């Protein structure tokens, strides 16, 4: 009865099985095939047209061909056409160095109470050496120096204008001639105007913290001319992106700053919002960039792209990992000295203390919603702990948080033993620590500049500073493998708790109970089998026909 129906059913079953099986094989085949992952395809499409076009040639503008006497005159020339540029720029953090953008709210920002564990503080811009990187002709007091970001020729304008000023005071015709020569050089340099290139951004951002690769670990001069292995996007043998290809701009506000606010409120692809900043990976790659059959796409709501695609940072140049200020001040015959380490970087400097450098560093991972919380010079610290000067905000339960890679810079820096606050020494200048090697004076002056109290008693406290790692994205075949995280004992996320990760986590109770059941069953059938073996002669006729 049912027997007639069965071959038909069997055929259907087999057909389904073969269908599912073959589609699996087909999908598996695409893994090694030439088919591209959708995220890759989309991104390539988005950046297909490489050329930018502009409607002006700055070498032809008469206003730029004048003999300039000062930086301000250059800026005025720029503003004669770009009338709103200066007003726009004055509102950006690049100018204010304050997270709020408001001079009255000094809480966060390097011109405010924010500190780090490198050169600690800009002392409300009193530390003049910091001004090297400020995009003004002289701090925030004078005009914007447009050339800092838009000058295509590397040219020391400050020096040139100081010389021009000096020679102009001189009546000697020879001096006048020299002055005119310098002015001609300035005019040539000034005519080379463009959108910011790697040199412009890199001059400050590759050298943050006082030197090449000191601060970030994923930003250093190796990105001036990287290959694809170092950075798939910026590689000169590949897409050759400039910084502004991703750090897109509106009204001179450059996308990508991570402080109290995230770089973007939400990651959107260009399909969702074509004017969204291209600062996130999602902008071009979408939030399901991997091949459709890939479990990797299920990771994107919990794991940042950077976590797997930047396996190590500082892959070419070393980056500073620790800085112990308490060791500073040692002099040889009354003079400061420095010791070079294996990586060609100073591991001791009288003016700075002990420091260590590393290359090919494995990041540390934290939950991050894109914002950082920081301990400023105003905040009360607990000196018995390691003070987190800057730390990512986020948790496993938060839908906006992802597991994100960080460089942790470990420092030891001065704090006020009475007020329990981090202290901001004045470093450069005649009365700065780098000249006087006098902590008391440097700390007193530094605190005064910020308008913060200093009890006079200080010691050194251990601190950490977290930098998000987001540059130096490696080619896809260098991305992490599953077991670099999905590992029982020593995966990269071993210390990141509060969520269940297959391969790493288990319930001791479930596993114990499980193995008890399994071993119990094994023991049971083993004993039963032995019992049967020894009683096999009982009623043999029945058991064996």
């Amino acid at each position, binding site marked *: 009865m*049912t*027997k007639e*129906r*069965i*071959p038909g*059913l*069997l055929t*259907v*079953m087999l057909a*389904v*099985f073969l269908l*599912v*099986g073959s589609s*699996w094989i087909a999908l598996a085949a695409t893994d090694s095939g030439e088919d591209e992952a959708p995220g890759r395809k989309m991104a390539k499409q988005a950046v297909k047209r490489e050329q930018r076009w502009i409607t002006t040639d700055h070498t032809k503008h008469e206003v730029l061909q004048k003999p300039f006497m000062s930086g301000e005159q250059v800026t005025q020339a720029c503003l004669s056409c770009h009338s709103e540029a200066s007003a726009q720029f004055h509102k950006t953090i690049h100018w204010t160095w304050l997270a709020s953008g408001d001079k009255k709210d000094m809480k966060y920002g390097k011109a405010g109470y924010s500190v780090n564990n490198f050169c600690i503080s800009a002392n409300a811009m009193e530390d003049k050496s910091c001004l090297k990187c400020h995009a003004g002709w002289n701090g925030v007091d004078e005009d914007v120096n447009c050339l800092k970001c838009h000058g295509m020729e590397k040219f020391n304008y400050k020096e040139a204008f100081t010389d021009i000023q000096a020679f102009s005071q001189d009546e000697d015709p020879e001096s006048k001639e020299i002055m005119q020569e310098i002015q001609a050089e300035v005019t040539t340099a000034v005519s080379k105007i463009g959108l910011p290139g790697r040199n412009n951004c890199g001059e400050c951002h590759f050298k943050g913290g006082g030197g090449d690769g000191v601060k970030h670990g994923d930003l250093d001069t190796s990105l001036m001319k990287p290959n694809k292995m170092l950075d798939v996007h910026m590689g000169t043998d590949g897409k050759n992106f400039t910084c502004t290809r991703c750090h897109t701009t509106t009204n001179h506000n450059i996308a990508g700053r991570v402080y109290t606010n995230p770089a973007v409120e939400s990651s959107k692809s260009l399909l969702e919002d074509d004017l969204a900043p291209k600062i996130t990976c999602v902008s071009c790659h979408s939030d399901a960039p991997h091949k459709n059959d890939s*479990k990797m796409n*299920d*990771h994107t*709501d*919990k794991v940042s792209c950077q976590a797997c695609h930047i396996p190590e940072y500082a892959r070419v140049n070393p980056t500073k990992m620790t800085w112990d200020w308490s060791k500073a001040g040692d002099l040889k015959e009354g003079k400061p000295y420095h010791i070079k380490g294996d990586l060609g970087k100073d591991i001791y400097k009288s003016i700075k203390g002990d420091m260590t450098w590393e290359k090919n560093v494995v990041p540390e991972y934290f939950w991050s919603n894109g914002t950082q919380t920081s301990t400023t010079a105003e905040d009360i610290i607990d000196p018995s702990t390691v003070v987190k000067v800057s730390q990512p905000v986020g948790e496993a*339960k938060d*839908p906006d948080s992802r597991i994100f890679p960080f460089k942790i810079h470990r420092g030891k820096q001065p704090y006020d033993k009475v007020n329990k606050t981090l202290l901001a020494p004045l470093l450069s200048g005649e009365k700065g620590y780098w000249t006087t090697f006098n902590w008391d004076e440097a700390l007193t002056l530094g605190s005064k500049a910020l308008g913060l109290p200093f009890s006079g008693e200080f010691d050194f406290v251990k601190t950490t500073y977290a930098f998000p790692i987001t540059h130096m994205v490696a080619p896809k075949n260098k991305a992490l*493998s*599953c*077991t670099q995280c*999905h*590992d*029982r004992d020593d995966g990269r996320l071993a210390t990141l708790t509060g*969520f*269940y990760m*297959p*391969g*790493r*986590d*288990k*319930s001791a109770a*479930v*596993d114990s*109970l*499980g*193995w008890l*059941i*399994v071993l*119990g*069953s*094994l023991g*049971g*059938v083993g004993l*039963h*089998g032995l*019992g*049967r073996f020894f*009683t096999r002669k*009982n*009623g*043999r*006729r*029945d*058991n*064996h*026909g």
Partner: protein
Amino acid sequence: MDDKKIIKIYLYTRFERFWHWLQAFMIMALIITGLEIHGTFSLLGFKRAANVHNFIGLSWLVLFAFFVFWLFTTGEWKQYIPTTKKLFSVVMYYSFGIFQGKPHPVEKAPGAKHNPLQRLTYLGLSALLLPVQMFSGVLYYTWNSWAGFMIPLAPVAWIHTLMAFMLVSFLLVHVYMTTTGHSLFSHISGMITGWEEIYETTTVEEWELPAKRK
């Protein structure tokens, strides 16, 4: 009992045998790859283990639907209706009788392939253990898609893991039980060929038969 003659009857249809061995293969493959994903050992490599596990798991889900369909259209589901009748004597047989060489109280017969203990076990397996395992597996697989914030992954994973251990336990006992037939391999060969050995004189009692079966 010398006069008892052993005959062979056709007990398991082609579909049943196909389903049985396919399911056996899938369960074993899922256990092996599942334990690797669990971090118990390394064999295929995590990525491949996960891919194979997901593929077989999803395929099983589809195939199980066919099995359930077959079960109900053929009326075979009635073979899974639990009964307490003779359950105790079956338990007693496996606990004592088997050592004394006593005969099995409920021999297999055409249309009665499960003894009361088997009915209970297989009902538990196919109505509880496997569905729970499939359901928790689907939750596990799609966890990221249903936003995953309502239930943490941990309890889903724990249930899935515990059920897996139960299946290993079932597998061990099940395989062992196949050796308790007329000969060590007679049950296994029955599941391969479809022909099971029984005593010629075995009578099938009324309660065992699917009464309404046409």
